[in-house]
């Protein structure tokens, strides 16, 4: 055997497939990765520290910028934490609206994942198709709250805006359209031999490993752990809707793909039920103008598109939190990456990294 040397290769922060400013320092022997070291923090803005100096209403727009692909769920977790401590009784209509926008946002987020993932492994077209459908969701959000990406929609005690006229019909139209398009995507991608070869049996981990690494969301379910906070620890009004939780078997990239596609379908089901049962009434509860959260601590958790999003809030009874801590699922899911990359080749690197579905705004906070 000839003597060969290992080479240090720097992937990111300026690299098309790191989905932002993520950096990986990999040691490669030929094209095989022998070691991978993730470097994070390029997008660190100190959201948690900043929050200590902001009133609760002011924190909400900061959370928009954490997981910017799914800002609604971030909005929710921080108002939910404050509402839990304050014990606010929310109007029904507000709860339903929250569920609708969060599930729509989940669909939008999974669509971005679908498009960029296929782009990562070299297929160009699905990206544009997915963004065409995502655009409809963004238009819906635009009509609802005037923003397409950073919504700043939820308030302690409800939501900022009631639905505009005809909005619910547009949502209904979107649901039926999306169902058709989802079939189209699966025809386009799931039957493709190259796609199957690039995803089946790649990046495998067991259910135990997934739990050991603290994975959550699709990354956990793809390995076969049947755990979804929406069903197992219901928050908001999720207990009123019927939906299934897709679970994978092998924990490979293909299972993650099927799980996410199925989640889009289940989210459509939830939105459909919520729109059908949509109640009348106000969208804001009676809360004081200046919100002071009573002294205490609370940890709340929810199922964001990326996994368990948690918020730990400590209040000293002021109008600003004493300490705010987010459990950011992208950050925790990323921990398994060095273990998954070991022994893989460079082409699988982007596939595995894409499969985890990180959002750098959330990793770095």
């Amino acid at each position, binding site marked *: 055997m000839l003597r*060969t*040397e290992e080479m240090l290769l720097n992937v990111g922060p*300026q690299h098309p497939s790191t989905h932002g400013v993520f*950096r990986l320092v990999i040691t490669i022997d*030929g094209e095989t990765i022998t070691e991978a070291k993730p470097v994070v923090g390029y997008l660190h803005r100190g959201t948690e520290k900043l929050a200590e100096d902001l009133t609760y209403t002011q924190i909400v727009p900061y959370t928009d910028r954490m997981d910017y692909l799914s800002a609604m769920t971030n909005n929710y977790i921080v108002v939910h934490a404050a509402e839990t401590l304050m014990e606010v009784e929310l109007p029904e209509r507000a709860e339903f609206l929250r569920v609708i926008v969060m599930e729509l946002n989940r669909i939008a987020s999974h669509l971005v994942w679908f498009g960029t993932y296929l782009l990562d492994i070299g297929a160009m077209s699905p990206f544009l198709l997915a963004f065409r459908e995502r655009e409809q969701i963004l238009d819906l959000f635009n009509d609802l709250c005037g923003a397409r990406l950073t919504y700043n929609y939820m308030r302690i005690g409800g939501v900022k805006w009631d639905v505009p006229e005809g909005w619910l019909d547009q949502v209904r139209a979107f649901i039926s359209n999306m169902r058709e398009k989802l079939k189209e995507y699966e025809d386009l991608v799931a039957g493709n031999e190259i796609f199957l070869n690039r995803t089946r049996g790649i990046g495998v981990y067991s259910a135990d490993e997934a739990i050991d690494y603290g994975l959550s969301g699709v990354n956990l379910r793809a390995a076969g752990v049947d755990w979804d906070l929406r069903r197992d620890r219901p928050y908001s009004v999720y207990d009123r809707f019927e939906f299934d939780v897709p679970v994978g078997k092998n924990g490979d990239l293909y299972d993650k793909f099927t799980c996410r596609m199925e989640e889009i379908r289940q989210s459509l089901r939830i939105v459909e039920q919520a729109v059908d049962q949509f109640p009348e009434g106000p969208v804001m509860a009676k809360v004081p103008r200046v919100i002071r959260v009573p002294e205490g601590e609370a940890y709340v958790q929810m199922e964001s598109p990326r996994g368990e999003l948690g918020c730990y809030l400590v209040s000293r009874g002021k109008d600003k939190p004493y300490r705010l801590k987010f459990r950011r699922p992208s950050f925790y899911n990323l921990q398994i990456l060095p273990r998954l990359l070991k022994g893989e080749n460079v082409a699988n690197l982007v596939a595995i990294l894409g499969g985890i579905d990180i959002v750098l705004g959330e990793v770095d906070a």
Partner: protein
Amino acid sequence: MRCTDIYIHPSLLGQGLMVRISFDGVTGMEYWANYSMTAIFFLLGLALPAAAFTVGRWLRPHHPSAAKIITYESGVDPFGDSRVQFHVRYYLFALLFVIFDVETVFLYPWAVAYDTLRQDVGLFVLVEMLIFVLFLFIGLIYAWKKKVLEWK
């Protein structure tokens, strides 16, 4: 204009494989004209980049700075050397490539002369090549079984 063919003349088979180039009615002048045409294409292929780079030099700016001429490595200063003893994992494929490339050198004249040879010596011409290819194919299967054809 019908052009030259390479074929193996049957009368030469006894003395080993010998290739004869025939000029089926093509004069020497035309023969060389055709080949000089390929030379012209080569020269033009060289002339285009030469012209383009010359014109480019007159038109484009040239302000190199230390930061500009640094090697790209995903946005950070490059570390380590890229001229390492790189592990080329496919060098065994490369050996196979040489073997099979030589095989094609034998296959092509055979294929050109196949009809002629078929009439002269019968199906033996096929059997002969079959044996030759089979030997190499056994080699390929051996490499396959030895897991040389895996990218480790």
